[in-house]
């Protein structure tokens, strides 16, 4: 019997609203002349805001929906809010970029919205089939977005590489799902967790294979080593606002899924997940931070930094405690603010066609464009984890959770690699302020929309850096109901 009720629709209200706006943007796209396409952008922004309001409404009627395939819980609301924030910032950062680089097509906005829908479903689903669909939606839209500069070779290459490797990784994920279904006869995470802990199938090697396969699929999305090789090429080739989107959105969504699957459903087989996470965290931090040292292209540098940050987040996940989960949630928001901010700021500095992307191109930027340089400095300091910025506290919470979980070795590696990372973040700052010279970077004033996005990020970084409890309290509340039993995972 059909068990759909009205409350089910309220529990996925943000996704519904986003989808509706995305469809409207898509349908109106062919009717608008090229000069008016930015209207669609503002309309999409309206959609994101409306979805935000819907998320607030949803938070008043929490619970499972659609045969327990959706869980509207604080955890999913938190992630949905995060994705909406990221989408809004990227939209604000893209209006001018699209016009300037002559790729002003409404599909861009529709794809951003649909990608966000997919990510929201990933975070909110407790059903592997839904998670897979969400993953596919968000992946497909980001594959296309990465190649949105249709006449640019690098962008095409980015799209192709991302697509080929991405679909390969999704296949791994699907393979894992198939094994899990074969073993337990269910794809629902709740039932799965129940059956695993009851039957004690925690020990079957086949389940380990399934877990590893699923982790490969998700590890690709969050770009953990050794599944990170696509990251620099894709981040470099994709249009900068798209890079901002895909360096945060799909990553955070995949982390949400990792938390739900590996700490939630598979907690009965914690030891395998733990060893895998531990190894991957170390590899990711070392590879990301060391490779970033040699980069001369700012986008590639930030790409390796994004890899390294995935490693820090894995440290928090490996801790496996409620404290770790809460630290991960906090860190993902902080990471979103600083990474999106940095990437959308790179776009206007690089100029039309993103030409000025080398580190040397930033020479003297601190004198010719003090505001821009100041913003970029804030992002770099926060990414490097300098105190008073949110980046510092984010790392602090992650590492503290790991210490409480007695992962001393992991924390030592994390701290050492963070210290290394300060070198390459500061290199950019040094080039901007300490070196004389005429910057290659363009000098057109920043458009208003971009200023709003940057201001949000910078203010967010300082507010979270100084008053973390505003969000941290929330993060703890979010982490507690579902993941308290994770404390005794190992």
């Amino acid at each position: 019997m059909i068990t759909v009720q009205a409350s089910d629709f309220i529990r996925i209200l943000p996704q519904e609203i986003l989808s509706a706006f995305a469809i409207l943007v898509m349908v109106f796209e062919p009717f608008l002349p090229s000069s008016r396409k930015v209207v669609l952008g503002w309309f999409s922004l309206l959609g994101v805001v409306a979805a935000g309001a819907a998320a607030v409404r949803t938070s008043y009627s929490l619970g499972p929906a659609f045969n327990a395939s959706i869980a509207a819980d604080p955890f999913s609301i938190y992630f949905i809010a995060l994705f909406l924030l990221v989408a809004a910032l990227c939209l604000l950062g893209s209006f001018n970029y699209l016009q300037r680089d002559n790729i002003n097509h409404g599909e861009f906005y529709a794809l951003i919205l649909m990608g966000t829908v997919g990510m929201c479903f990933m975070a909110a689903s407790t059903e592997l089939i839904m998670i897979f669909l969400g993953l596919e939606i968000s992946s497909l839209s980001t594959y296309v977005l990465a190649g949105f500069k249709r006449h640019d070779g690098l962008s095409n290459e980015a799209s192709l590489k991302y697509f080929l490797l991405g679909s390969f990784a999704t296949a791994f994920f699907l393979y894992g799902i198939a094994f899990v279904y074969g073993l337990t006869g269910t794809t629902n995470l709740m039932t799965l967790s129940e059956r695993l802990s009851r039957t004690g199938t925690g020990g079957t090697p086949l389940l380990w294979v399934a877990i590893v396969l699923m982790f490969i699929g998700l590890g690709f999305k969050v770009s953990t080593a050794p599944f990170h090789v696509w990251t620099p090429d894709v981040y470099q080739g994709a249009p900068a606002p798209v890079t901002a989107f895909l360096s945060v959105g799909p990553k955070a969504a995949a982390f949400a899924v990792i938390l739900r699957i590996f700490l939630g459903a598979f907690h009965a087989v914690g030891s395998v997940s733990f060893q895998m996470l531990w190894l991957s965290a170390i590899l990711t931090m070392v590879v990301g931070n060391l490779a970033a040292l040699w980069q001369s292209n700012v986008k590639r540098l930030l790409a390796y930094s994004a890899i390294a940050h995935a490693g820090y987040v894995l440290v928090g996940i490996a801790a496996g405690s409620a404290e770790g989960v809460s630290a991960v949630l906090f860190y993902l928001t902080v990471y979103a603010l600083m990474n999106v901010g940095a990437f959308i700021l790179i776009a206007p500095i690089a100029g039309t066609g993103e030409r000025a992307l080398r580190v040397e191109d930033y020479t003297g930027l601190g004198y010719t464009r003090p505001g821009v340089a100041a913003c970029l400095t804030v992002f770099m300091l926060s990414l490097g984890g300098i105190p008073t910025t949110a980046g510092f506290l984010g790392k602090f919470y992650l590492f503290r959770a790991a210490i409480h979980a007695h992962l001393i070795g992991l924390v030592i590696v994390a701290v050492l690699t963070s210290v290394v990372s300060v070198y390459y973040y500061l290199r950019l700052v040094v080039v901007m302020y300490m070196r004389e010279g005429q910057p290659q970077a363009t000098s057109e004033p920043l458009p208003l929309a971009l200023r709003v996005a940057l201001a949000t990020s910078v203010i967010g970084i300082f507010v979270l850096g100084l008053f973390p409890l505003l969000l941290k309290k929330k993060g703890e509340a979010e982490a507690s109901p579902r993941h308290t039993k994770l404390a005794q995972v190992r």
Partner: protein
Amino acid sequence: MIAPLFYIFAGLAIVAALSVVLQRTPVYSALSLILVLCSLAVIYLLLGAQFLAVIQVIVYAGAIMVLFVFVIMLLNARQESPTDHSLFARRLGLPLLAVFLAEVIFVVVGHFSGTVFAAGATFDGGPGAVGGLLFRNYVLPFEVTSILILVAVMGAVVLAKKQL
């Protein structure tokens, strides 16, 4: 009756899959792939998943293969010239592949040895059963599929249309 048929078509699928990889001419690979997909359809049928078997033939062996052939013709791909095999692939890739294969075989055989596989007669995978599940228990995934298709429509237009 089922077991010998299963082994015949599973073997056919493996041989055809190897042929996909080993053929030098892309069109031959594509044709071999059709054989793989059809053999899989038969295996679905043997498992009782009748609807899936038919869809496999219509969508995969029919529609998706058309696209494969289009792409081959679009790229104007002729016979591949043999590359000097990359050292990386040979020294690292092949051994890793062998280890992975051995692992999976070991685990799967170890896990399922002595288990009787699902026989076709016990399981109804006809369109009615699929429809019942799809439109009752899995309504949401079904509806969300439409969004996925929309993304793909836009993706195809954005990436492949001559003028946007």
